[in-house]
């Protein structure tokens, strides 16, 4: 089924990370998510947007709203053309980082949403799709 709504935001600067947070909050509020769930979605989006910027050298977030069987789902897909992740399993473990971060971004954001899918190949960029239903 095609999404009810679909838009793509560029993540090129730190301001864009703030902008993705605001846009996700706005859409989560519009769809009627509870405050805690809004906060979880926005926080996960913030982690993944920063990853796309810092590790992927910039990328995009595609925001989609789906309605299936009376449930409304907010889906966010973060894509970058960066170096990719060599060891996806390790990258999902808390404390694993190849940069200066805490290593909580991927594993942590997985815990904040109900659907999480990560596709990455060394040299082939990274795509992370998260979703949560109202």
């Amino acid at each position, binding site marked *: 089924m095609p999404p009810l709504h679909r838009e793509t935001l560029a993540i090129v600067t730190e301001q864009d990370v*703030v902008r993705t947070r605001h846009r996700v*909050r706005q859409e989560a509020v519009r769809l009627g998510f509870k405050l*805690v769930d809004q906060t979880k979605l926005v*926080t996960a989006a913030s*982690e993944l947007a920063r990853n796309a910027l810092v590790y992927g050298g910039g990328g995009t977030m595609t925001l989609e709203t789906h309605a299936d069987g009376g449930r409304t789902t907010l889906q966010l897909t973060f894509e970058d053309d960066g170096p990719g992740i060599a060891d996806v399993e390790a990258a999902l473990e808390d404390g694993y980082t190849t940069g200066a*971060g805490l290593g*909580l971004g991927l594993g942590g954001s997985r815990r904040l949403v109900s659907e999480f899918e990560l596709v990455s190949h060394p040299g082939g960029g990274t795509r992370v799709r998260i979703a949560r239903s109202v």
Partner: protein
Amino acid sequence: MSREINERIPVLKLGDILLVTIQVDMHDQLALTLQNELTEKIVETQAHGVVIDISGLEVVDSFIGRMLSNLASMARVLDAETVVCGMQPAVAITLVELGLSLPGIRTALNAEQGIALLQGHPAAPVEARGHAPAAP
């Protein structure tokens, strides 16, 4: 949407305590700027305590969480104690699920209690504590 560009976060001096109220959604550079300014201000004013009011923050992700932890560590090295106060319940729930427990940071429910804690007066019992929103 981008009113926070070039904004600075004010640091107020109250006796020997510095009060920082974060009311904007900080981009990463602004968080780092705050870290630098606050540490300089601790030395300049010889403050013994720092109260960081985050009641205006709707999101604390791992970057901001780490910034708060680092600030507390830096302040401690400079002989100042840090209290983070006013965290929204939804932010607290999200932080813990994210995996951040803000080690080494003292917390208070609001700025008044944060200041009392630093002045050595144990915070008075909080009548509102029983009415805190429950986790879903």
